[in-house]
């Protein structure tokens, strides 16, 4: 059990960031967010394996997963509300914060 998963974690994280920064579809943004979350969970579990405290790491991972679900749920609700207003999912329409 000494596989080095760190590069994978970083790749996964980088993919999430890339997705967040480039995609204009809101559901794609959700996917990017999820990828970030999964990279984090993986990092936590793997650190627990390395440190030989798997129980502790697993309990942390449980929490991250639970929070992640809530984030996703809210995000989806927001997407729904946004779609009701503007009838599409393009972030280019989310420009009301422009200064």
């Amino acid at each position: 059990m000494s596989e080095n998963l760190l590069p994978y974690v970083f790749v996964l994280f980088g993919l999430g960031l890339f997705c967040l920064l480039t995609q204009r579809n809101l559901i794609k943004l959700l996917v990017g967010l999820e990828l970030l979350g999964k990279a984090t969970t993986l990092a936590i579990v793997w650190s627990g394996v390395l440190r030989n405290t798997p129980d502790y790491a697993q309990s942390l991972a449980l929490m991250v997963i639970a929070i992640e679900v809530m984030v996703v749920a809210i995000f989806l609700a927001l997407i729904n509300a946004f779609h009701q207003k503007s009838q599409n999912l393009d972030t280019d329409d989310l420009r009301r914060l422009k200064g």
Partner: protein
Amino acid sequence: MTYLTMAFLILFAVLAILLPSTLMSVLSLAAVSALLSIVFFQLGAPVAGVFELSVGAGLITVLAVLTISFIQARKVKKQIRTELWIVASFAAAALFFFIFNSLSPWVSPSSVPPVNWGAVGEVLWRLRAFDLLPQALVILSAVLGILVLLRPEKVETP
């Protein structure tokens, strides 16, 4: 073994990002989640694995697909090309085969290592009792927020 799973995982992550169809990308994300749970099993963290599989691959996907179907019901239906369906089915079949194959050591009861459920629960309730309660509150408020957001807006929809 883990490296291979991780490679599949990365592949599906790239797919999730690049696929133009939102439904496809969400399904790919579900695959990523399922693969991640396998990685957890392989790393010896079955509790996290079970959670990841049920919540990450199951619940989130269901929610996302539901939302997409809600949205697309109101939109003009786009025709999905048949070839894509075929590719997708093959990919799904390969994925399921791989998953079952990877999980097979645990399928026979004799080879399942003792899962220490109690230890995780111990840690969760004893050591992390402090932030468990705020977490519950966060979930509760999130539920309320979703209820507010999903309220039908009769006035503003034309």
